[in-house]
């Protein structure tokens, strides 16, 4: 049967006379201090050198609070506190450790709204996401891993399990509290103590979390939080008292860490960048696939390492998919992260916005065709970027090869499955991928052929604490989540 060929390019008009009034999330209930110190040995302590930096609200460009700048002497104090607490923590019955972790999970749930608002204020992500995705997943991770604490011998049958010691954990700015939870939960239940370094631009939820750590009665020194920028992280990586480093962030920094740790006994896991292929076959359920494309790339302003940033559309449906995609982009609301109707919030920092803009220029220069939705964006000193689409992109383009980490999607077409698999795998990353087809056999054959740590079929950006997450190639090594997420924090003999 032949398909009707003639298709119009009529767009729909989403600049409607009826639209939504601002619906701002109430922020009266949140408790924020003007200044935050370092959290070491169960107490907030001033940084040794007494320096502070500002954390900004990316939606306004204005300062929210002063944050202590941790430096090498502070890291040293934190590692010593963690080492001291380790002997106590490891001596505790595993079921007792679980109780503390369950308590953290419950307390996060109790204060979920407060955490969600602070996360959106500090990171720029829409409150819809922090309220329904970030914070619930934080609690879910603590709950999930708490259950493993007294069952580790059954997790690795026939093996002796032993904790490692002091773990240094470096957290990115895209999912500030969630990435902290991903790292803290498995480390704690396996009996390790932690020095955590939040990202420079998004330290607030980790510091609020420190209040919960105090309230939960976690023994002092088991969790230490040292804020700062790259040098603070480097001091943590290079500290001889640290037994393991877990890092989530850019591939560039990840490589430096791996170099620094070469020849030491420190264990390492890296969760780095990605440039995921999201593949739409002609037999896919197209309207739902379009939704998956949107969720894949515009979730959290595209600040997602597993974002579906490379779209591959089969030739026969290219025109209609692009039409639908552009119309769907017109309905995305870019604006105040604290508005419940906002779909796309603020870009995390001025620096990141600059990076994204450079890629947009590069894309145009390389000859791809740029399309941006035309809705309004706030004009207020915040950092904003319209959802962007590049058609006519190619494997040789920079915007196709490099991770942009913003709301920017490249579109390529293909004719055969072999062709798309070759292009999808032709990247130095390998974190995630997506396949959309109505045919089960294609789901199995294609997902198996994609060299990526996480492959979604007919959905995208789904996370569950029971499911391992991690990369191939320059996307890193080691897994977080699930049973797999325990082993990086254990010696198995």
């Amino acid at each position: 049967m032949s398909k009707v060929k003639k298709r119009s390019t009529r767009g729909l008009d989403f600049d409607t006379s009826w639209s939504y009034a601002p619906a701002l999330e109430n922020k009266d209930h949140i408790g924020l201090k003007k200044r935050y110190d370092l959290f070491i040995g169960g107490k907030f302590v001033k940084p040794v050198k007494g320096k502070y930096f500002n954390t900004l609200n990316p939606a306004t460009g204005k300062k929210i609070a002063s944050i202590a700048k941790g430096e090498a002497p502070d890291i040293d104090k934190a590692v010593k506190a963690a080492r001291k607490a380790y002997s106590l923590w490891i001596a505790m019955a595993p079921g007792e450790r679980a109780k503390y972790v369950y308590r953290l999970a419950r307390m996060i749930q109790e204060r979920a709204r407060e955490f969600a608002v602070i996360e959106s204020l500090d990171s720029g992500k829409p409150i819809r996401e922090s309220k329904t995705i970030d914070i619930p997943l934080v609690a879910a991770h603590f709950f999930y891993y708490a259950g493993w604490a007294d069952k580790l011998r059954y997790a690795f049958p026939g093996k002796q399990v032993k904790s490692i010691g002091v773990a240094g954990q470096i957290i990115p700015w895209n999912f500030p509290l969630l990435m902290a939870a991903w790292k803290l939960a498995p480390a704690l239940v396996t009996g390790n103590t932690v020095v955590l370094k939040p990202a420079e631009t998004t330290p607030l939820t980790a510091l609020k979390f420190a209040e919960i750590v105090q309230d939960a009665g976690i023994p002092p020194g088991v969790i230490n939080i040292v804020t700062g920028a790259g040098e603070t992280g480097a001091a943590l990586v290079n500290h001889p008292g640290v037994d393991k480093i877990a890092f989530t962030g850019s591939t560039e920094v990840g490589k430096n860490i791996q170099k620094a740790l070469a020849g030491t006994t420190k264990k390492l896991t890296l969760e780095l960048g990605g440039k995921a292929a999201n593949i739409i076959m002609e037999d896919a359920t197209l309207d739902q696939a379009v939704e998956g494309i949107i969720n894949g790339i515009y979730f959290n302003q595209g600040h997602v390492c597993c974002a579906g940033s490379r779209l591959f559309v089969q030739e026969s449906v290219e025109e209609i998919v692009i039409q639908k995609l552009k119309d769907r982009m017109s309905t995305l609301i870019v604006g105040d992260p604290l508005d419940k109707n906002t779909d796309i919030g603020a870009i995390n920092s001025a620096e990141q916005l600059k990076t994204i803009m450079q890629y947009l220029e590069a894309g145009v220069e390389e000859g791809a065709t740029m399309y941006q939705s035309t809705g309004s964006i706030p004009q207020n000193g915040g950092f904003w970027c319209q959802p962007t689409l590049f058609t006519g992109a190619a494997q040789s383009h920079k915007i196709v090869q490099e991770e942009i980490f913003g709301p920017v999607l490249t579109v390529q077409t293909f004719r055969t499955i072999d062709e798309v698999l070759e292009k999808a795998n032709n990247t130095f990353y390998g974190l995630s991928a997506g396949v959309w087809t109505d045919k089960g056999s294609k789901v199995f054959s294609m997902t198996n052929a994609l060299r990526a740590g996480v492959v979604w079929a007919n959905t995208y950006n789904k996370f569950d604490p029971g499911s391992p997450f991690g990369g191939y190639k320059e996307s890193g090594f080691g897994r977080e989540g699930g049973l797999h997420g325990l082993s990086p924090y254990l010696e198995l003999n």
Partner: protein
Amino acid sequence: MALSLLINNIDINHISYMKFAAVESPTIDQVGVEERVARLRSRSIKKEAKVEGLNLILSMIDLTTLEGRDTPGKVRQLCAKALHLRDSYPALPNVAAVCVYPTMVKEVKKLVAGSGIKVASVATAFPSGQSTKKVKIAETRFAVQEGADEVDMVISRGKFLRGEYAYVHDEIGAIKEACGQAYLKVILETGELATLDNVRKASDLAISAGADFIKTSTGKIQPAATLPVTLVMLEAIRDHYYRTGERVGMKPAGGISSAKLALHYLVVLRETLGEGWMHRDLFRFGASRLANDVLMQLEKERTGIYQSIDYFSKD
């Protein structure tokens, strides 16, 4: 000569069916549809957006009574409600139509004359559709002769579920012819179609056969209108628009009794089809109780106080 004889013997509706059959209906992923609906439901409609939305909803209502026990008296009172929604509230819009059985059409036509309110009549052996094509055509002609501006027909679900798409398609085409100038709304009775794939196929079929509106339900079968079904039907309308530039209307009916739920429908409409459909010429609510809840919410927005339902006329 032989060729022209052959062409003369083929039903024109059937040629149109053959064109329809050449375009495959896309399959639908139910999980994806439900996720999309959940996201659309999270839109927060407050303050002036709420008041404007409620006004728009009122203007899109087909005020309906479709019961065996309907009497001229009951229908007269329903018309009075349509004409006087709430006289004390300034500048309220009229409802779009009054929807009744064919025997009541004449009465309604007389009462709403000059108000701009349309007269809609169900037809084609509503609600089951279990009759012959001939009878259905006759009933449609009767309703139109009596003065119906719009005809709400039901499709033959039994035939559809048995895969006799050509029959269903040709029947809709025949009813469309019988409608003449009257608008044709085609009720798919999605509660009997079992899957969203079927909903999509029936939508495409009705649109191809000449429906001016596609409508979810008779209100006599559960589930009646739902947001996922409505989204799938709106997507069928959207694809038809992409292909042809023609705008087909949508009418969810049955079970939409709260203003809050109706606002969700409006959100789904807005973000699926946009401005071109945000009007009663292309979107209707089939409902009997919805109007009062909308009025109650409007009064709440105006006065800050929820009034008892006894302050709103029930007809």
